[in-house]
């Protein structure tokens, strides 16, 4: 699905990622853990095409294409989805309008007609129920006045509707209480299938109790320093990031 090779990224003159190598085959869930400042969010931003980052070396191949050459909206239309750590508010634009505009942009890109309004509503109402969200969220402005948990659920709702191939979850567990975490995890697990890959970025092991990854990577100082199965997360939780950093040093 996605192949990251020797990726070096700077912000201004400051190198943040210093040679990241990562392969995520279709259908797998990979978790990236790491201490603050390791470059986790930089990786999610670079993959989704946010401005302000300079790729100085390396490549990212997604479904056989050079991902870094694509505009952010083209990456999205090709199936790259970022669930934001801090979803923005867009006053005056209703959630359902945004969802429909996004879905139609994607359909148009793939040569399909715009979605029928009634079919769309039926589909959205089914998905919103699964995320235990109230229908009234559809008619409120995007994220405006939403609680932290509501914003994160809203991100997953968007993923459920857009059905991406490659889904990046950036600290999706931050700011969630345990009940919200369960609902969000359930939503993510429902999206897991053979054709869809996930890159799950998290600081804590907690999320991995609910979404079991196939592979866990540890990112420290701009590099992946250790990879392993789900048990690696537990080991990290017990021994702290310090343990990995010492091993590498």
């Amino acid at each position, binding site marked *: 699905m996605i192949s990251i090779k020797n990726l070096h990224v700077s912000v201004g003159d400051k190198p943040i990622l210093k040679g990241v190598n990562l392969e995520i085959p279709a259908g797998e869930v990979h978790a990236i853990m790491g201490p603050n400042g390791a470059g986790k969010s930089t990786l999610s931003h670079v993959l989704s095409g946010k401005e302000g980052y300079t790729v100085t070396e390396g490549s990212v191949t997604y479904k056989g294409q050079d991902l870094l050459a694509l505009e952010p909206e083209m990456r999205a239309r090709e199936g790259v989805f970022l669930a934001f750590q801090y979803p923005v508010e867009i006053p005056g634009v209703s959630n359902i*309008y945004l969802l429909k505009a996004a879905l139609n*942009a994607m359909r148009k890109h793939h040569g399909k007609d715009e979605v029928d309004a009634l079919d769309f509503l039926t589909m959205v109402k089914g998905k919103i129920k699964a995320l235990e969200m109230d229908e009234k969220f559809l008619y409120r402005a995007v994220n405006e006045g939403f609680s932290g948990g509501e914003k994160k659920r809203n991100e997953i709702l968007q993923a459920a509707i857009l059905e991406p191939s490659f889904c990046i979850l950036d600290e999706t567990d931050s700011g969630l209480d345990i009940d919200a975490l369960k609902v969000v995890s359930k939503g993510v697990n429902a999206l897991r299938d053979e054709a869809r890959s996930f890159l799950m970025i998290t600081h804590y092991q907690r999320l991995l109790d609910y979404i079991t990854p196939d592979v866990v990577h540890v990112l420290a100082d701009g590099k992946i320093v250790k990879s392993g199965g789900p048990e690696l997360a537990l080991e990290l939780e017990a021994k702290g990031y310090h343990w990995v950093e010492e091993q590498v040093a």
Partner: protein
Amino acid sequence: MSSSAEEIEKVIGQKYKEGFVTEIEVETFEPGLNEDIIARLSAIKGEPEFMLQYRLQAFRHWQTLEEPDWAQLNIDPIDYQAISYYSAPKKDSEKPQSLDEVDPELLDTYKKLGIPLDEQERLAGVAVDAVFDSVSVATTFKGKLKDAGVIFCPISEALQEYPELVKQYLGTVVSEKDNFFASLNAAVFTDGSFVYIPKGVRCPMELSTYFRINAANTGQFERTLIIADDDSHVSYLEGCTAPMRDENQLHAAVVELVAMNNAEIKYSTVQNWYPGDENGVGGIYNFVTKRAECRGDNSKVSWTQVETGSAITWKYPSCVLLGDNSVGEFYSVAVTNNYQQADTGTKMIHIGKNTSSTIISKGISAGKSQNTYRGLVKVAKSAENARNYTQCDSLLVGDTCGAHTFPYVEVKQPSAQVEHEATTSKISEDQLFFCQQRGISAEDAVSMIVNGFCKSVFKELPMEFAVEAQALLGLSLEGSVG
């Protein structure tokens, strides 16, 4: 500049599509303003004597006045003697009796502007009065309106056919001594629309006037007078465009509305005069006095304006709420880009008991433009239980433009309730990136955000205009689902 900021510029700064010039033979007065010119103007229009006297009185008063300079505007000096005060397409007959007699060049001009005047293609349900420079060239659906008792015609025609009616109301809301530009207009106005809705009549269709400035070095001075008699209702729309020219052109209009007992007037404007180029060269100077009097009890006047054009806009559509329980509303979207300047807002004057007013103003500034809201809410001692709600929101695009808000509140009645809310926001890079990450291009994202920002005003516009207004902002229609 980052690429998303460029996208914003691209969307807001679309080329002016109505900037073409119509090649047509015209009769134009030589530049200059004096009593002779006014007499000639009045004569060419075949006006009754009282009008000439009214004009001269206004002109004599105007000469004692100075241009107002209290607005947040930088205006190059205007040479009033360098302007021509009358320009009209030449025609053989006195007045075209049917559209077949109207110059095809003119019909073509309106067609290009999306205002078909010919019988088959007329906008369904909308009667149009088309004003070209100083004269009205066509009015559609006159017959059908007459059947309902509604008078809708050029004001020059009304002065000939219904002089008493015009005399009774003209200048009673905006006097010829009201202000510098209103006095100038009273002296030299050339055409505009006249509407009279008789008692108990609900006007069967939308009425609309489309103003077009074509000639160079000419000012347009239009005058509109709308009277809604007891228990009547009318919705009126106004649109404006002009060719692209390097020199500034003057447009000084006066609009007077009178609403009697239980009458309702809805007045909507989409103002798209040529705004000047990206370096601030050319463009229309738009100095307009618009005022409504809610004379009757339970009357209501609603102003909705979408202001995207003009180099300078100076305009404060107001409501004088005389009748008890009368209602005034003002909904405004003002967009400025490049070097455009707008100083616009409203005045709500509460005099009757239980009068209420609502002001919703949305200002969008981009480029190096300056956008000012200026509003007055005045509650007289007599206005028991008056209420006002004001909401002023500004949206900044980029960091070289300015947004300003000057609310004035004068309350002399202790039972009055006056509320004012104001916000300023900016389209952020994070909002654009979020939308792009969902597959929506930056261009469409800006449209969506600006549309969302203006939604509470656009929903007040009649359907035909709402679409035009959104297209004007270069935006796709915000659809609704469910």
